[in-house]
């Protein structure tokens, strides 16, 4: 009984905070746009009973999903978001890993301070940090003034309102999510393994690739997911720092919801986004599990 209760808690959590909201969004995505409050016609209410439910499924049209496939805006936005998220994740990993490695290799008494420095920016509002970047990157901003003063450039660079600004802001914002899990993995790493590798004839660089990286693998994977998943749906960064040409699915969703007031189509966009995110993750985990079983 106690075991059942223990298992029930996480399942209840999933049910209440993931499955129920998902079903609500799914239901809206299958309804029709209407001038009402809220602005869609529920084709089926929870209280209507089985008869109504059957009727609902009988004349179910996937018109909102069909609509998404007809306009190439949505596909382009999905692809563009994927690209921005992948590139930002790779850059974040390239920047984050050396930092995590450095902290894990630093003297034990420094580590809490260094970790604190990583977390410290979180104490400032995310919006304020994005606005600070706008101040740094704008035409009259700190970066341009500094580079002009150094004489490196003759004309101010246009960085704000381009995709470059979006990458900078995403990497900056999500960097701690990459550093912390990698640090956690490296921190647990047993130094004697490295010594053993060197004793057995590995150079330090070989030992790094053959021992450190494989053992940090779970931390790297966790960090990449923690960066990739929020980055793909990011809406604040592209709308504040991106240009009019920055196409991301979060912005498209915003437009559907606010400008078109089309909650059904907005919900359909969200459902597809979720599927795009969840299916590769499930496949990945399956594969991992298989590998582990094969090894075990």
């Amino acid at each position: 009984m106690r075991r059942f209760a223990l298992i029930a808690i996480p399942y209840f959590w999933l049910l209440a905070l993931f499955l129920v909201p998902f079903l609500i969004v799914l239901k809206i995505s299958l309804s029709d746009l209407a001038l009402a409050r809220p602005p869609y016609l529920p084709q089926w209410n929870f209280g209507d009973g089985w008869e109504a439910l059957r009727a609902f499924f009988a004349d179910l049209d996937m018109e909102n999903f069909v609509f998404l496939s007809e306009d190439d805006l949505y596909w382009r936005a999905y692809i563009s978001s994927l690209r921005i998220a992948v590139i930002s994740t790779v850059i974040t990993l390239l920047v984050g890993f050396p930092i995590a490695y450095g902290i894990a290799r630093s003297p034990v008494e420094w580590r809490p301070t260094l970790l604190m420095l990583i977390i410290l920016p979180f104490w400032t509002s995310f919006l304020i940090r994005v606005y600070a970047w706008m101040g740094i990157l704008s035409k009259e901003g700190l970066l341009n003034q500094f580079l002009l003063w150094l004489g490196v450039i003759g004309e101010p660079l246009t960085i704000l309102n381009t995709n470059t600004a979006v990458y900078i802001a995403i990497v900056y914002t999500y960097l701690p999510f990459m550093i912390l899990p990698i640090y956690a993995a490296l921190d647990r790493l047993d130094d004697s393994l490295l010594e053993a590798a060197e004793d057995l004839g590995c150079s330090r660089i070989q030992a790094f690739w053959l021992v450190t990286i494989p053992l940090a693998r779970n931390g790297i994977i966790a960090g990449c997911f923690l960066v990739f998943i929020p980055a793909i749906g990011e809406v604040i960064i592209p709308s504040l720092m991106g240009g009019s040409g920055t196409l991301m699915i979060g912005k498209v969703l915003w437009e559907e919801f606010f400008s078109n007031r089309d909650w059904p189509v907005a919900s359909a966009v969200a459902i597809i986004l979720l599927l795009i995110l969840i299916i590769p993750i499930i496949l990945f985990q399956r594969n991992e599990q298989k590998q582990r079983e094969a090894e075990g």
Partner: protein
Amino acid sequence: MKTHLLSVTATLALIAATAQAEEVRVYNWSDYIDEALLEKFEAETGLELIYDVFDSNEVLETKMLAGGSGYDVVVPSGTFLQRQIVAGAFQPLDMSKLPNAANLWDVIADRTAAYDPDNAYSINYMWGTTGLGVNEPKVKEILGDDAPVTSWSLIFDPANAEKLAACGIHMLDAPAEMIPAALNYLGLNPDSHDPDDIARAEEVLLPIRPYIQKFHSSEYINALANGDICVAVGWSGDVLQARDRAAEADNGVEVSYYAPDEGALMWFDQMAIPVDAPNPEGAHVFLNFIMDAQNMADASNYVYYANGNLASQPLLEEDVIGDPAIYPDEAAMASTYTTTPYPARVQRTVTRLWTKIKSGV
């Protein structure tokens, strides 16, 4: 001890309840009031005023249609108000609580009745036109002294837009205003709901897209005032606020507002009470306070927008009531046009076109 705790809880609940009743939550456009008025309201009525701002009708509309916004007074523009009334988002005003409604100006009330029949749900706060904010010396430096600063061709003609691009052009991120302006420029009915007509707005807006630095509905005030940009499509009073900020900063920037010769969109911002307002009583107190002649005059003198309050006119400063950019004369009034809300399917066409214009996709 237990009873003690109970009484403490009861007192806390009571405090919470009274605090709730004493609050009036107002959701208005940014840069749209003299903040001294907010303090005056609190001092006069003893109500606590919570004042939040937005810069797009779309954001407000989504809150209204979702319901439960928690606001007591909101300020949608005419066409948005009309749609939200149909959707059942507002409650009818109780005129017996609004004695100052006698101050309203019938000329404006007649026009707003097109959106809100009998003005049963809303009162006019301010109105204005959508036109061009121009940094005239800089524009003339680039285009020559005969630059068409009073015409949409200043930016809708790609040759002009291209030359002005380096200096900077901002455009309102408001498809419901920009597409009618483009149609009007083409000589079509600006209020056309025909998707074929609307598609033709593309002919005007797509060629100038590369020359638009930003589509935004509030940043242009500072950008114009600082001299960062040369031209902004903006709302009359906002541009005049930019003019004054530049004059105050004494930075050598000169900003002017022109309602274009081809005709300008006339819009009305209406105060209304959401159907689920937590404190409709307080909302009426706020509306009545705003309709006071002196208060409305103070607001207009501060934000440089015309209001729908006849009694406030003798109290307006000369640079407000006497400025044809704010209170157009009858001939200019006649050349303005108004729009009506798009039906949902047409709205989708409009938004899609706007996305194409903004992002090129």
